[in-house]
Every structure is written in C-alpha cells, then in structure tokens.
C-alpha cells in the first residue's frame, strides 16, 4: 500500500515536472482572441473592408455627441441644463484648455485620421482577387473623404493643426511635425477631397462616402475659404443632381427610416450601434437627462410661422409637475436609438450657393436659393434686396435650419460675426484651445493664443 502511494506520488511529481516544462511555453504565449496584431490588420479584401468601416466608426464617435455640441452649444439656441461643467464652459463661451470634451473630441478626430491613414497606406499595395479594383478604389476614396472631413473639422475648430498622413506604428510617428497653418490644413482637405472625388463611385448612397459627398464637403470648404465661385460650382453640382432634392415637410429628413433624398451624407446608427443623443435632449420625465434645453428666444423663432414654419417640429413639449416644458426633438428615437448624425444636407448646399452668389453679386440667384429653403419650411419668401440684407437673411436662416446640428458656432466664426451676434468679442476665443494634456505630451505643439 505504502509503496503504491509512494510511486503514485512520485509519478505525479514526474508528470508535473514534464508537463510543467512543456506547458511553460504554452502558458507564456497565449494568443489574443479578440484583437489582431497591428501589422496584420489589412491583408485581404475582408480586412480592408473592416478597416474602412472602422474609420466610419471613429467619425461616428465624434459626430454622435461632441461635434454637434461644439457646433450648437456655443451658439445662442441651446443652453446647458445639466451638471457637467465642461458643457457649461462651452455654453458660456469660456473654454479652458483642460475642458475634457475638447480633449475627447481632439482625440477622436485624430483616431479617425489614423484609421484613414492606415487604409490609405495599405490599400494601394494590396492585391487580393476577391477585392475588385472598383471596390478597392471605393475603399480608398472613402478613407480620403473621411480624412478630409476630420481635417476640415479640426481646421474649423482649432485653426491649423499638425498634418499626420501616415499610419502610426510607434509613438514617434509625426515627431517634430508642428501645427501647419489653417490654409495648409484646408489645402490638405482639398487634396484629399480631390482624390476622393476621383476614386469614389458616382451613386446615391447616403451613409457612405460617394462622389457627391466629396463634392458637397468641397462646396463647404470653398465657402469657408471664401472661394465663392468654387463654392457655387460645387454646390450647383449637388443641387442639379437628380439624386438629391429637399424633402417636405422639414421634419421628413429626420424621420425614420432616414436617408431621405435630401441627405448627402449622414452617419447611420442602429439599436446595436446606438445613438444616445436623444438622452441629452429629453426631459427626465421622458427618460432623458435634459442636458440641452432650447432657450426661449430659439423656441419663439422656431414657433414663429414667419421664421420657423414647419421647423417648429424640432420642438416638442411635455408636462412636468403641472408646467409645460419644451424640449428639442431632432434626436427623438429613444426606443430604436437610431437617430443619425447629420453631416451634409442639400439644404446647406442651397444656402452655400445663396451666400456665394450674394458675394458674387448674383442677388437674384442668391434670393432664389434662400427661398427654396424657406419654401420647404413653409415660411414666406424673403424679400431681402441688398447683398448685406441677403447675407444676414442667410445667416438667420442657417440658425433655424440647422438649429441643433453642428453649425451655428462655426458659421458665425467663419463670417467673423461671433463677436457681434454672440458677444464673444475676444477673437482669440474663436478657436478652441489645444488640450492642455496634449501640449505637455507633444513639445512641438503650440497653444492657441489667449488660452
């Protein structure tokens, strides 16, 4: 008995030792099952598709909350009604460089850039019979378009930014690369859009980039650069395209199943890939947090039949504690959670062309374009007669047309009217601060003056 036990025991020990040494290597080299090594990320048709989809995901990430907020909250339509100070700072036009929303947006934007850089770098050299040339061009074009969008937003947000154009493998990527000028940044956007336009298919997909998306963004770029003729040309391409038309009433473009004929580029969400923007607008009685509340002046404008017209549908109201409370209803799909983020709409192209024409002296054309937008909203046609009146009318039209989208702040900064309209007289405050933490991590980075 004793002997048997000894033998069993020693056999067990021997087994443990043998297993131990061979098991060591297995123990020490587990393979990740939910990540891929970075250098194996884009190797064939399937991974090229996934990597491109991944860039959309990053653009989705900053367009879901942060970018619309940075567009509307510094404006005068919406006030912050919650507890998070980073939003309050934005509402009060008192940004500081440690604002965590600014940091998050900046980070997400460059994540999108890096994702696009990966696709741009890997695709040209990729040969997989399962990836037809047309699709390869499309994926590449999408990456160029999304990079252009990210750099455009970086430029209008912060001014000139470092232009990183190669995928990051080590943290040294882009070392020594300093901020470029805003002009250089916009030049890069133009270069990417030119590439995108040539590579992308000429179809009417509305939630992935196509030729029209590149043209629409280009029209906006030219508007921001005050290149009026180009802005008019590109906007006209969209306006004259049979694939696009304004939908009526106003509410139709933001009504499920979305992807209306007005939409040029929108980011689609679904219940599995949810957009929780509604949560910020709905009062808590309806399950939201009521962080963003339309201000009385904006409510009055939207409800005014001569100004808002059927854009009053952007508002809804409910009774809380016996009192009527009005809230923003653009993002309203609380159950389905599939509100899109609106990036490029045809209405904007009309207003771009209107402004460009007004600048170019074509007042009749400008007025006509403006009134197309007003007509759709069910408000009387504008009778603005001078260029100045027209420009003001266009500015005011944008305020109600894009009331809760990423526009108002950038629009007033672009036209130099943020001081007059919003009272932000310190022009240094017309760009966002570079995140404080990134200045520390990146010695080459310079802060915008005034922060």
């Amino acid at each position: 008995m004793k002997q048997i036990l000894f033998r069993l025991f020693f056999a067990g020990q021997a087994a443990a030792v043998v297993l131990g040494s061979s098991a060591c290597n297995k123990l020490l080299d587990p393979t990740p099952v939910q990540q891929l090594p970075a250098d194996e990320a884009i190797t064939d048709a399937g991974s090229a598709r996934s990597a491109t989809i991944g860039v959309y995901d990053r653009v989705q990430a900053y367009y879901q909350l942060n970018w619309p907020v940075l567009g509307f909250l510094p404006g005068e339509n919406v006030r912050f009604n919650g507890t998070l100070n980073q939003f309050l700072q934005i509402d009060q036009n008192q940004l500081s460089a440690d604002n965590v929303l600014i940091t998050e947006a900046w980070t997400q934007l460059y994540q999108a850039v890096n994702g696009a850089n990966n696709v741009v770098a890997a695709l040209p050299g990729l040969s997989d019979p399962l990836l037809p040339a047309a699709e390869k061009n499309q994926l590449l074009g999408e990456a160029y378009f999304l990079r252009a969008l990210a750099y455009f937003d970086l430029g209008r947000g912060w001014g000139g930014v470092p232009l990183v154009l190669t995928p990051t493998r080590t943290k040294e990527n882009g070392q020594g690369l300093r901020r470029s000028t805003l002009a250089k940044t916009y030049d890069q956007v133009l270069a990417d859009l030119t590439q995108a336009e040539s590579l992308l298919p000429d179809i009417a997909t509305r939630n992935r980039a196509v030729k029209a998306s590149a043209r629409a963004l280009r029209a906006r770029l030219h508007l921001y650069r005050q290149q009026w003729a180009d802005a008019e040309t590109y906007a006209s391409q969209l306006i004259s395209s049979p694939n696009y038309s304004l939908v009526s009433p106003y509410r139709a473009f933001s009504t499920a199943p979305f992807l209306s004929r007005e939409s040029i580029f929108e980011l689609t969400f679904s219940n599995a890939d949810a957009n929780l923007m509604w949560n910020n607008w709905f009062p808590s009685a309806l399950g939201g947090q009521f962080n963003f509340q339309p201000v009385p002046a904006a409510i009055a404008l939207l409800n005014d039949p001569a100004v808002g017209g059927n854009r009053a549908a952007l508002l809804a109201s409910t009774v809380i504690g016996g009192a009527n409370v009005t809230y923003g209803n653009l993002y309203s799909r609380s159950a389905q959670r599939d509100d899109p983020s609106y990036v490029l709409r045809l209405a904007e192209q009309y207003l771009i062309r209107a402004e460009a024409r007004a600048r170019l002296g074509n007042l009749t054309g400008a007025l006509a374009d403006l009134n197309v937008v007003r007509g759709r909203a069910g408000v009387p046609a504008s009778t603005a007669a001078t260029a100045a009146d027209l420009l003001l009318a266009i500015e005011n039209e944008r305020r109600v047309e894009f009331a809760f989208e990423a526009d108002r702040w950038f629009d007033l900064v672009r036209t130099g009217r943020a001081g007059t309209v919003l009272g932000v007289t310190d022009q240094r405050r017309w760009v966002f601060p570079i995140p404080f933490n990134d200045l520390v991590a990146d010695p080459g980075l310079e802060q915008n003056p005034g922060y």
Partner: protein
Amino acid sequence: MKTSTLRRALLFLLWGGAITASPAQSNTGPLVSGTVTDAASHTPLPGVTVIVKGSSAGTTTDANGHFSLAAPTEGALEFSYVGYAKQEVLAAGSPLAVALRPDLQQLSEVVVTGYSEQNRKTLTSAISSVRGETLQNIPAASPDQLLQGHAPGVQVSANSGVPGGGIFIRIRGSNSVNASNDPLYVVDGVFINNTNLIATGLGNQVSANPLADLNPQDIESLEILKDANATAIYGSRGANGVVLITTKRGKAGDKTRLTFNTYHAWSKAPKQYQLASGPELATLENERFINDGGDPTLRPYRPVAAGGRGRPEEQPTYDRLQDVFRTAATQSYELSAAGGSAKTQFYIGAGYFRQESIARPSAFDRFSLRVNLDNSVTEQLRIGTSTALARTRRNVSSNDNNPVGVINSALFPRTNLPVFNPDGTYAKYGSFDNHLALINNLNNDAVGTRVISNVYVDYKLLKGLTLRSSWSIDFNDMYENNFNNTLILAGQPRGTANSFLARDITLLNEQTLNYSIDFDENHSLQALIGNTLQRNTLQRTSLAGQQFPGNDLTTIASAATQTGSSSRSEAGLVSFFGKATYSFRQRYTADVSVRADASSRFGRANRWGYFPAVGLGWRLGEENFVKDLNIFQELKLRGSLGKTGNQAGISDFAALGLVQGGANYLDLPGTAPLQLANPNLSWESTRQWNVGLDAAVLHSRLLLELNYYDKYTSGLLLNVPVPRKTGFASVVENYGAVSNRGVEVQLTATWLKSAAVQWSTTFNVARNVNRIEKLAAPITTGSRDIFRLQEGAPLYSFWLYHQTGVNPETGDAQYQDVNGDGQLTVADRQLVGNAWPNYFGGVSNSFAYKGFDLGFTLNFEQGAKIMNMNRFFLVHGGTQSNIGYLAEQLNRWQRPGDVTDIPRLTTNPASNNYGGVVQNLSDRYLEDGSFLRVRTLSLGYTVPTAVAAQAHLSSLRVYVQAANLFTITPYSGLDPEVNSQSGVANTKNFDWATVPQPRTFQVGATVGF
C-alpha cells in the same frame, strides 16, 4: 541561457531529491502520559499541543489538561500553547507534570512567512500578525476591512458604507500608477483573484470586493508581509505587500468541538446632509436672479398673482433623504466543528451573513462553507485540503458619480419641488431620477459563486526534508441580472435589461522542497526551493435587451431588441524560487531568497524577472553586554534589502500593437487601432530596504516594534501620454518612478496579566511619504481631471484653483494667479493638497476581569484632504438650475463688508465665482479629512464553565458591541472614510453622494458544545 540553467538546476533538485528519498524512522514507543498546568495558577490547561520532538507525532491535552501518547523512551516532548512559553521535557517518568509559564513575549510566536514558518525571534523581516479572534465579530463583510487600525503601515479604508463593496488597502503606500497597488492575498497557499467582476455600471465605484467571499470567522491568522525580504519570495506579485490568510484547522488528538457564533446588528447613518429648505432656496434663487442683473419685479419667487412661483416663505420643503437612509440590519450565523485524531484532523465551518446597506435598497448576503482536512497516510506522507465555497448575493444600486443613483436623486433635486406629480406619478427633475422610483423598482441582482480550493501532498523524504506539491483553483463567477422597468430612467423608454456573466479562474500548481536542520545547539538552517505554474483566464459575456412588452416580463427573452457580446483574456506565469535562513544560536540570523518569474504579458526578450532579497537579524539582547544592563528582555536589530516586481493591473496583451474589432458601422464589422506596440515592455520593480528594532522591557510588559523603510519603484508600467496626433492617447511603457518612505511604530503594553485580570493595549502609528520621482508628462485623472500626477508631488494630489478669499467689497471669489499673467487660465490650476494622511494608525485595548471582557479599537488618520463634491454641486451659486443648495450656501456674500469664503451668488462666468474658467474647481471644497474613530467598543461576559456545563455547553460568551460609535473629524461631509471613484485609477478621497460608514449596535453570542 541563464534562465534555463537555473530552471534545470531547480528541476533536478526537485526531481533528484525525490529519487534519493528513503523512508524515515517512525516514532513509536511506550505510552507517556501526564498533566499540563499553568505555572502560576496551577489550573489545568486544555488544548496544549504535545509533540514528540523531531517528529510530527503529537496530541493535545483534554479538558483536564491530561495527555497521553507514544514516545521513544529517550525522546523529548515539546509542549506549546498560545500565550505560554514553549517547553521541552524528557519523556521519562510517566506521569509527567508539566507547568507552563505564561509568555508575555509575542516576540517568540511562530510567524507564517512565505512558504514556511519562522519563530519571531529569528525573523529579519517586517511582518505584522493579526490573530483571527481579534477580528471575528466586527460587523464587516470582508477580512481586509477588519485589518483597519490593527497593523502598522497598513492603510485600510472602505470606499463606502455599501456592504461587500470595495476597499482601499495600501501596504506602505502606493508604488504604482497604472499597475495595481493592491497587495497579493494568499489563502492557505492559494494566490487568489482580486478582480471586481461586477459589470453593472454603478457610478465609478468598485462595487464588489472579491475578498468578501471569505468568511472572517474561518480565519486563524493574518500575516502582512511588508518588506522586500518577506515578499521577494513572491517575486513579481510581491511589490505591494502580501497578506497571508491562514484558516482554522483541526488539531491532532483534539476532541471534536462544536462552536456556534451569532450576532445581530442594527446600523444607521451617523450624520445627515443639511440642505437648504424650500423658503431658503427660493430666497437664494431670487438673490441670484437680481445679482445677475434681473429685474427685481420679475424675480422667480414672487407672488403667484404676479406671475411668479409664489413668495419664498410660501415654498414647501420635501425631505427626500429620510426615504433613502434606514436602520439596516446585519445578521451572522456560523457553526463550526474542529477536531481530529492523531492521523486525521478537520475543520468544518458553515456560515450565513446578511447585511443591509443603510442606503436603500442595497444588501449583501453570503453563504459560506469551509472544509479543511489533513491526514497522515503514513509517517512520511501527509495529504490534505483547504476548500472554501461561497455564494454571495448583492442587490446593487448606483450611487456616487451617477445622476440616476439613489442618493443623488434624493440629494440633488431642489427641496421645494414635489416628489410626485399631481397625477401621482414620480416627479423627475433635470438629469435626476426619482429616489422613490429607484428604491421601489431597482432590480439589480449579482450572484457570485466562489470556490477556493487547494489539495496538497507532503512527503517527508528525510529527517527535516519535506517535498510538498499542491494544486489549487480559485474559481470566481459573477452572474448579474438587471431589469429596469419603465418607472425609472434606466428603463426608458420601454424597459431595458442586462445580463452579465463573468468568470475569473486561476489555476496554480506548486512544488516546494523544504529543508530544516539544527546542526547542533548553535547552528540551524532552513532552506527551500520551489516552482509555480499559474494560469489566469478571465471571460465575460454580456447580454442586453431593450423594449419589453411590460414591466412584468423581465428576462431578456422577452425583449424586442437583444444584443450580446463576449470577451476572453488569458495570462500565464512561470516561477522558480528559493530561500534559506541560517541562524547561529538564534542570535544571528541571515536570510536570502530569490524568485525568477516569467510572465506572458511581456515580450519574449523581457519576460523573465529576478527578484532577490537578503535579511539580517541580530538579537543584541542575547549579548552579555546588553544582558548585564538588565533592562531588555529582548533587543533585536533587523535589516533587509530586496527587489520585488509588479505586473498586475496591465492588460494581458499590453506589449502588443493591436487592432480591435467591434468598431462597427452600418452593422458591418469594423476594426480600429487599439494600442501601440511596446516589445520592450517589462516588469515594474520595487527596491526596498528596511531597518527594524524589536525590544521588550519591564519584564516583557512593554514591547516595541520599530521599522523604517525606503521603497523605490522604477520602470513604472505607465500609460505614457503620446501626442494625440498619432491617433493614440498613450502607450504602456516602463517609465517613471515612485518612492515611498516611512516609519512604523507598534507598542504593546501588558498592564496586568494575572489569572483574574488581564489588561493590555496595543498602539500603532505609521507615516508614509509618497512621491512621484519621475514621470514622462503630468497625467490628469478622475472626474473633471481633479487629480493630477506630477513629478515631485505625491499620487492622489488634487489639481484645483486656490481661492485666496472672497473680496469683501465685490463679493467675488479671488484666486491665486500662479503664473502672474494677470488672467485666470488653466495654468493657474495647481496642486493644492493630496489624499495621503501625514500619519495613521490605531489603538486596541482589551481588558478582562474574571468572566468579563471589555475592548475597544480606535483608528485615526491625520492630514489627508478630501474633495467634497457634494459641496461642489450643492454650493453652486445658481449655476446649476436643476440642483438645490446645501445650507452652507446661505453663508454667501451678500453686501459690501461681508467676510465669508462663499462668494456672491451669480451665474455670470466672468466672476469665476462658480462657473467661468474655474468651473467651481476651487479648493474651497477641499477639506481636511483627519479623523479619530472609535471603530469598536465591546463588552462581553463568559459564563463560568461550571454554569455552562449545567446547560450542557462547554463554553458560552455573550457580548454587546458598538461599531463606529463616534468619529471626531473636522470634515463637513458625512464620513471622512470615502472613495467615491474607486473604479478610477489614481484617485482617492473623493466624496460624491456616497453611502457613509454606518454606526452599528450589535449583540452576539458564542456557544461551545
């Protein structure tokens, strides 16, 4: 190949040693019997361990102090008993009469060290021991919390008063920034998982403490290994200190003892928030309106007839907090049986513990079962197991940093707003839920299953040479089911549900070869080598459902939309270790140890780490020149130096550059870059030296233990910020250094020790100075970036604007202009204090007279700062339109000449009073968190044995106890022991709608059958 040589050598020793084994002599001989008594009182001592010297054969004395066992005629018997000096008697002349002398010196106790035991006399390390019985009736769920105030240099603080929730524990400070700072817990040789598995988001709070799966009543002793000499044998896992938990076992020859232990306790919040009433709130709001330039005739609280909300004095006040806080019940039942024959010993314990949170509706309960078995198969071969099973259930609810938490929803809404709408539905304001809706409808259920089991085989190869092999599993499983109905915000709009399953499994195999020899009277040697193989697998599955047909169908099967996800991660660790202790006349002792670890988390070239340590001890008191002084009964100098490592807390694949899936769009699969590669990633290592002094004076009535240590952690596993233009925010690198230096003092005074009266007091105090020595760039963390890590400053430093005062003329807050540029920008934010105490410690006192015992424990911390976020939010000057006010806001500046630190009410950003650039991040909400707390106060009575015997009981003790009876503190919040964002690394002492530590009254009884 240094590593494989070492490995082969160790393997040879293990394997080769086994081959050369030969069965040793067995101990048999004539029966020897006798009686053991107390030398002073001559009363018999039951339960004394009697061992034939040089063997494992032994027994214990019975209730009358009798023993009998077989012993070789020329052999010697060793008698040992807790609290008495060990005695050796020749086994000649049966019956023997042995009188044991009380031993006042804890210095001679046996201390469990890594993989071995050692007499405290020869110990060269800094190790604190805490006996299980001193802790067992404290009404807390987990054993780590019980250590509070009991061990010098061990800082323990509960994150909140939620039962079974997370604990902040640091042994000699924090060494690491990104890697874990929690000690390693080893329960009966099993390295246990300490990862919180609860996935339900509760507001940045670590919601579960995995140690709450252990029943404190099963614990025999806790040893806290603090210096490198003690912890280096745990190598890469030892840097943060090691807590060895030894559970109760049966003793050879003990008659089976049945013990029933129970207590019931009632807890309440010791303090309540002071909110501004409805009329006060309305007055403040009117004032804010006018200060903002509003037309006084249009102030919001004006007569209803004038279109207002009614005059201030007409405003009602609703007290929501009274609905949240309750008198919470705790109950504990524990039944154990312990005993054994000469061959087989056992301990079986079963327990049930249930504790309600003082904040509705959370509660925790635990069923636990432990079986510890040891069997001597032959004289040489011993097998056994330590197995614990636990099933825990938590009814969790969110609080802390969560607007839809229960406390938040009661604390923050304005007091003049009704709880219910006119139609009887729950009224909700701003971002907040309705507290009653939450209390009545929260349905978050987390059920944990835990198995910690170890089986071992001990084989005595030769005299003094033992081979041990042990196989262990730590299986931790958490199953959560949440349903949010439509009455609460989380359930909007049509009901939501989540189900999470997490499984954390550690498998461990370990071999040790232990050699112990006394060459002669002068020389003794203890040596050990061993190896460990370890694998950890963490898997998580989550399911979510939205849109339910109604509030009665609560499983995800009923949901219209069902989504799911799963994840898996794995890590391995291979280790070899050895240590030796040589002692000359128990006067001079030298220790040396080394461990080599290979971790799968690092690249091939860097995976091996070597962690050596040495320790020296000199019992000066044994030298004649000290003996002649006739002052010291013990005087010992100790010193040690060593290195330990850390790899906990980084992700399993941190060294690899990875692209992750799940970056989906249009419901198509997408991939996106996740992290940058760092093939050079390796261990974070801590160098520590320690010098210590142990002394006993006044006939060993006064014991002193003194330690000074210096730790330097370098190669920090750090998320080093990288320029974000790369598309990444950080990369894990070995960069940076943190130091901790400190001193620990423990004094034990035995005032009286006679048969009738015993009175002793232990006092300990420690100071730790933490400093970030090297950091690539400052790192901000926590809500609103309130914490900032910066070179030269300690961890847990608060980064805020320093308010110099409130201008008595204008009523506006004034802040220090740090860079002197005349304007207030983020550059003027500065480190204004930190969460470390200057010193902390505890006092425990026990007094016994005849059958009565009286004890108390105090613990204290001095100088730590707390960021009081409740004031941050509730003293907002009008900037928060949906939040009420603390009564403190009434102290605001009102008119020129007012001197106060609460500025004028206004929402104007230019004033920076509450909003603006400062965003209320002012140090006026940073407070002194010093405290002195009466942790426990207990009075017990042990019924005389004779009386108990009449009731057919062998013993009976009844007691009453109060926990947290009172706390002396300048802190204005509910409780200075608070850590609301424990789930966020590098933050501490952050108070935000957190459940305070309750004041508890308790009655209990321990019955022996």
